[in-house]
Each structure stands twice: as structure tokens, then as C-alpha cells.
């Protein structure tokens, strides 16, 4: 936030996030120069994971090239960026929807075992929940609150498994319409 007196004395240049075409063309130019081979699926993946940030996109590209060579697939880009594959997020979400605690626990254990960073998982879960059409707003609010708390706790250094399990539990209870208060709360 810039204070008004300061802002009013300046000429402003607004930079918007780059559009997909501009990004893609630049990326393709770089691929050309570096002798890289990028299929169209990989290209669109790159756009989505970099979220309009060209520098990030180039970094991911370079990382993938170093690790995987000149022929880069969508999967390679995902693994370099640390973005969690959609199937994994979906699996966790589905487990929560099912109302089966043990199943959700299993999925959470899987996420940890695969080494995916939980803060990233929370962020991706957030996207899934917010965009879900079949979930009423009240439930979404409950889930988001739980995500925020867990994120804060992770920053404080809390254990990843326990926080993700808590999120999964809260998500399940929201989606299955269980009451928010615990039954044996004193």
C-alpha cells in the first residue's frame, strides 16, 4: 500500500499478468534457442503452474531440462515445480466426501509418504473446494476456515501429517453435514 501523497506524485505503470499467448510464445522461443522439445500439453501445464509469472515458468523449464533432458513432458514439469498431481488431490477430496475416516487417513498417509509438501496440498485443496459446484457456501466456509488454521500452524512448525489429517477430518464433516460442535466437548 502506497500512501496517497506519494502515489499522486508518481506516474503509474500498471503491469498485468501476462496472457497465455505471450507466455507461450516466449517459452517456445527459449525452447528453440536451447534445443528443447515441448509438447502442447506440457506447454499448457507450464502456463497453469506458473500462474502468469514468466520468470517462474522459465525456472521450471530450466529445472526440467536439467533433470529430464531435452524432451520435456507435462509430468516432468509438474515434478520440478512441486505441484501435486491433480489425481492425488482429487483422491483426498473424494475420500473426504465419502465420509469414511479411515479412507481419508489412508489418503493423508499417502500424501506424506509421497513427500508432497502439505502447504502446497492445502493450497490446491483450496482451489478444488472453492470451485466445486455442488458444495453449498456454508460448507465451503467451514472448510476454508480449517485450511487457514492449518496453514498457520504449519508456518509455526507443526507436524504435517496431523494438520493434514485435521483438515481432512474437518472437510469430511463439512461435506457430510456433521455438526460443527463435537459431541463430547466439555
Amino acid at each position: 500500500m502506497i500512501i496517497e501523497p506519494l502515489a499522486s506524485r508518481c506516474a503509474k505503470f500498471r503491469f498485468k499478468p501476462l496472457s497465455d499467448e505471450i507466455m507461450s510464445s516466449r517459452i517456445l522461443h527459449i525452447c528453440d534457442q536451447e534445443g528443447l522439445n515441448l509438447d502442447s500439453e506440457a506447454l499448457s501445464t507450464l502456463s497453469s503452474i506458473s500462474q502468469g509469472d514468466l520468470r517462474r515458468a522459465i525456472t521450471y523449464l530450466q529445472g526440467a531440462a536439467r533433470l529430464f533432458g531435452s524432451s520435456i513432458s507435462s509430468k516432468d514439469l509438474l515434478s520440478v515445480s512441486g505441484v501435486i498431481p491433480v489425481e492425488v488431490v482429487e483422491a483426498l477430496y473424494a475420500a473426504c466426501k465419502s465420509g469414511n475416516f479411515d479412507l481419508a487417513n489412508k489418503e493423508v498417509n499417502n500424501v506424506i509418504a509421497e513427500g508432497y509438501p502439505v502447504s502446497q496440498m492445502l493450497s490446491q485443496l483450496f482451489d478444488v473446494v472453492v470451485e466445486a459446484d455442488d458444495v453449498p457456501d456454508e460448507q465451503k466456509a467451514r472448510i476454508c476456515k480449517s485450511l487457514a488454521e492449518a496453514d498457520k500452524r504449519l508456518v509455526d512448525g507443526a507436524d504435517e501429517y496431523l494438520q493434514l489429517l485435521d483438515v481432512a477430518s474437518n472437510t469430511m464433516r463439512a461435506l457430510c453435514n456433521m455438526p460443527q460442535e463435537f459431541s463430547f466437548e466439555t
Partner: protein
Amino acid sequence: MLWVDKYRPKTLAQVIVHEDIAQNLTKLVTEQDCPHLLFYGPSGSGKKTLIMALLRQIFGPSAEKVKVENRNWKIDAGSRTIDLELTTLASTNHVELSPSDVGFQDRYIVQEIIKEMAKNRPIDTKGKKGFKVLVLNEVDKLSREAQHSLRRTMEKYSASCRLILCCNSSSKVTEAIRSRCLNIRINAPSAEQIVKVLEFVGKKEGLQLPSGFAARIAEKSNRNLRRAILSFETCRVQQYPFTSNQAIPPMDWEEYISEIATDIMKEQSPKRLFQVRGKVYELLINCIPPEIVLKRLLHELLKKLDAELKHEICHWAAYYEHRMRLGQKAIFHIEAFVAKFMSIYKAFLIATFG
């Protein structure tokens, strides 16, 4: 020597479980200049093994000749000098250490070491390897200041010093560092992969494995390869020839926690809470980390609980573990969790059975 170490792959070519990653790493260091690396993944998945094999790939066999050094660092921090003590492991081309061992002053160590390494830059013999490698363990335990100073030092000395960072969870590593490194995720091996390794070790040791035995060990190890091999070896010591339904001994502390869980389920009272406290003290004396105590206790309790309680209990476990991180004395929070559980469970029993 333990089997874990005896059969640990020494070169990238020998790696069984993460073959693809090993291949990529080989390509990485032979074809190009090695960037900073960040290896992350759960415990016992093979990060260290890969790092050591990688070092060997870069520097050759001399990377394995390591010397332990217990150094005292005198660091000039402006108005005062700080005295720190740290154990390092060094070969001619690399240094390995765990900066979080020194506690909250870890940032000084990081700066000092890198500065020192930068000063003694090795001669460029093969035209490529004019740099030293610094391996930092447990970077997720580094304080935020340490991570910031690491980032700055990384930039400044990147010509002469490459960093290989190792941690369990990359969430705790700041974005700045993650973006300056090539992040390599080392996932825990699947049960089948573990079985493969166990069969390999069994063959090398000349042992007969009944069918399904290796699978049982793999399952019990919870996708932790190191655990699986250690368990395997204890089974061998216990009884050989193996029988297919031979009991796989758990770790002693896990059994102890299981007993605690049973105690808690049997009686819920302040007196019982006090007894539980005594048992937890036993675990703490043996340096079992408190968060592992809490997690394992939760695991044992969840096994025995009805569905409706599971949600409530895991909520409190997450709550108290978080507070344990922020607090000073872990026992207070572990005890609060147990007390809460007892309180809830007692209410549950009364409500259900009257």
C-alpha cells in the same frame, strides 16, 4: 556392520529403488554444471543414499573418505563473539553438517561455513570441478533467520560452493531457498519396491525367505526402507530359519506407546494420567521426539476408537501438537492431550453405556 549400511548402494548406478532419479542425477552432473539441490521426502526413503552416491559420481571414490571433526567455531557477530560447537563430516571435496544442532544460533554457523569453504577453493583439475559441495541436513529445522542468511550466502558464494540440502518436508523451507535450488522429491518406496530390496538382501546373505514374509515386513515398515531392512535383520537374529508367520518385533518404544494407549482406554482418571506421565517421561529420557510420541499415540488410539470419536481426537491431537511446537516443555501438552482424550472418552462411555 548393519545390513542397512552394508547393502546401501554406493554409486548412482547401484541404486535400486529410485532408479529413474538416479539416472537423471547422473545425467545432470556429467553433462552440465551442478546447481544447488534440495532433496526432500519422508524419513527412510533414500535421500541420504542418493546424496552420497551423487557425491561419489561427482568427485569419485575420494568422496567416501570422510573424517569426523568436532569443531569449535568462534564467530564474530559485531559486538560479541559467539562460541559454537558442531560436528562436521568432511572429505577433500565436501563438508556435511547439521546446522540445526546448535539451536537458535544456527544462522551464524551457516554463514561461517560457507565463507570458509569459499575461501579455500580447490584447484580446477578436470576443468569442471572447481567447487566444493556443502551438504546441509535437516534444513527444515533451521530457524527462519538461518534460512534467510543461507539464501544470501548462497547467492554470494555460488561460484565456489554448491549446496545440497536435505530435509523431510519442503513446506518448512522458505520459498526463497526453494526457488534457488533444484527441488528433487524423493518419495517413500512402495511396498513392492521394499519387497524387492529385502529379497535382494536376503539373497546376498544367503537366506531363505518364506513366501509372504518379505511382504509382511514391508507392510509393517510403513514405507520406510531403512526400517524394513532393520526389521529384517532383527528377525534374522531372533530366529532363523524363518517361519512364514514369524512375529516381526516392533520397536520397543512403539510397544511402550501401545501399552500407554491401552492404559488410557482402560481407566480415565487423574491418577491414571499421572501414571501415563511417568511413562511418557521414560520415552522422553530416551530421546524419542515428543511429536513422534504424540503421533504414535494417536495412531494407537485411533485403532481402538469408534468412528464418531476419531474426528474429535484427531482435532485435539493437531491442536496440542501445534502448541507443543510453540511451547517450551513438551510434556505439558502431551499431558493435556491425554487428559482431553480421557475426558472425552469418559463422557462417551457414560453416554453410551450409562
